[in-house]
């Protein structure tokens, strides 16, 4: 839990007024600080967002660096069939990614481009609205999170997500195929593997942000086509890019306010 100076003064002020109860609150605060404070170099943001510069991405159309970076660091299994497929970030042709940008005469290179798609970390996420166990929720910094231990696997969030960003573990991702090849080719011990029967998706690399690192896909992109930052900070690189370029979002008409912007 991040406590900035203003909140700190507010809480301590109230605590002082509260007297004895205030002491307890102070203790609790001190304790929570000790227990939960993120690492000193953690990245802080109020409205995390990503900008995908399709102009740069097109240069290496079909490149899978971002997908590879994400899927290997997060132990995303590969079952070798589309039925059971799990994906956190993937590519779709332009017209599938942006069905409401239908226009017969878009520039050729755009028409034949494929866009990297991921969870949009919507400001108004329909998946969070429908989850019956609060296994998916929105953090204060805008990241839509997923608790793999609480998920009951009802898949209501998948039905609600207009972007196809959520995957379900139809079978055990920790298992192996008939030839004994594990579905997770190389396990990253620093990140948990999931179990069968739960939903998973991109989390904007919350675990890396806590360590002061940028999301894996951003780091993995050689073209620097993916840019991550805080929309609340007018000086951030994302804001600069969005200020200077025309960008589109997926299915804006649904009112979900997606936080992944595509610069065309």
């Amino acid at each position, binding site marked *: 839990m991040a406590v900035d100076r203003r909140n700190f003064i507010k809480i301590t002020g109230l605590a002082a007024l509260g007297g004895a109860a205030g002491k307890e609150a102070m203790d609790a605060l001190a304790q929570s600080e000790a227990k939960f404070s993120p690492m000193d170099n953690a990245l802080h943001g109020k409205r995390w967002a990503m900008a995908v510069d399709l102009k740069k991405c097109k240069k290496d159309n079909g490149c899978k660096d971002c997908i590879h970076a994400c899927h290997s660091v997060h132990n995303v299994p590969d079952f070798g069939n*589309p*039925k059971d497929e799990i994906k956190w970030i993937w590519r*779709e042709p332009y017209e599938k990614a942006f069905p409401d940008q239908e226009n017969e005469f878009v520039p050729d290179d755009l028409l034949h481009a494929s866009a990297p798609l991921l969870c949009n970390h919507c400001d108004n996420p329909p998946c969070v609205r429908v*989850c019956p166990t609060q296994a998916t929720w929105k953090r204060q910094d805008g990241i839509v999170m997923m608790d793999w231990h609480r998920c009951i696997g*009802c898949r209501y969030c998948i039905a609600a997500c207009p972007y*196809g960003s959520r995957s379900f*573990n*139809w079978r055990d991702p920790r298992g192996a195929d008939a030839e004994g090849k594990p579905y997770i080719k190389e396990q990253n011990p620093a990140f948990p593997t999931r179990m069968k*029967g739960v939903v998973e998706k991109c989390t904007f690399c919350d675990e890396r942000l806590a360590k002061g690192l940028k999301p894996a896909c951003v780091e993995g992109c050689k073209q620097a086509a993916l840019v991550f930052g805080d929309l609340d900070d007018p000086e951030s690189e994302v804001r600069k890019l969005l200020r200077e370029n025309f960008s589109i979002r997926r299915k804006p008409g649904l009112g979900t306010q997606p936080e992944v912007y595509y610069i065309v």
Partner: protein
Amino acid sequence: MLENALKGSRRYWGWIAFLAAVIGIGFLCYLRQLHYGLGITGMSRDVTWGFYIAQFTFLVGVAASAVMVVLPYYLHNFKAFGKITILGEFLAISSVTMCILFVLADLGQPMRMVNMILYPTPNSILFWDLIVLNGYLFLNVIISRVMLDSERKGLEPPKWIKPIIYLSIPWAVSIHTVTAFIYCGLGARPFWLTAILAPRFLASAFSGGPALLILLCLILRRVTRFDAGKEPIQKLALIITYAMAANLFFVLMEIFTAFYSDMPEHTIHFRYLFFGIDGARNLVPWMWTSEILGIVSLVLLIVPSTRRNESILTAACAGTFISLWIDKGLAMVVAGFVPSPVGNVTEYWPTAPELMISLGVWAIGFLILTVLYKIALTVREEI
């Protein structure tokens, strides 16, 4: 009273043994599913709800339809339904039980089901569904138990049961409305995004459920000494007629809205159902069967002479039931997922284990129904 279920003819026990066998096979398949995961079903990344949730949706309707005998009997004192009201309530009990089991079968982590109670989430429609389904089960158990008990003792039912019966009437409507809300609030699925979904669900429920009840009454007349009589069956047939007419009217309204506006998002799912898209036409023959059966049955129900003929009425009820089962228990849920939000067309068809688990749940429902009917009819015979 309950001991009546333990005394029966050889045919009774034969039927129970058959159901137990089906339940056993279903349970073995369920164990297999628990071990392997839901990947054992035909569901996929694109079609994430299938046969289980469709059965659940259909059966909520059957459960809700009990109100079609409860309401005239208790609210309007319509005496002709006196003999069959308890049959309707028992049908509701077994249907709701099946609904809950189908939801359980559909969960990826069923052992975590209690999370829905530990972390109550009022913004999720599933939370409300849990409340209305269990509440409805509870109401029907109490009402049928108290009413049957006083009937056996030849006493007037206690006064406190009346408000509970009245409560059960709007509650029945609520279970199917909430089920419709599970679907119709999702911007991601234009096929379900229609304000008429709840009324449509209710109309199909109030025709499909009573159709099953008529069929059950006719079966009971054959295999037991119980005869519901002509009048209540004819009255039920009238209810089915009006509800089915409303249901088909609602379907036509949906089709008009989608196709006259000609918005691709809204037409494409209907195109998939009735004509198929991109060579995917799994549901096409089923949908046409459903529509034709529905229309023919409705005509047979509307024409007084065919409605009064009990063998034709039987066929019309069977037609109505099958038509609505295809519509709600097969197509309704799947069509919402095809095509997917990015336009991928992935077909769905239930696998053998999935069907066996579903059959097992249906058999549990029929087992509960058989036992409850056995108790009720034995009590009647003793009076």
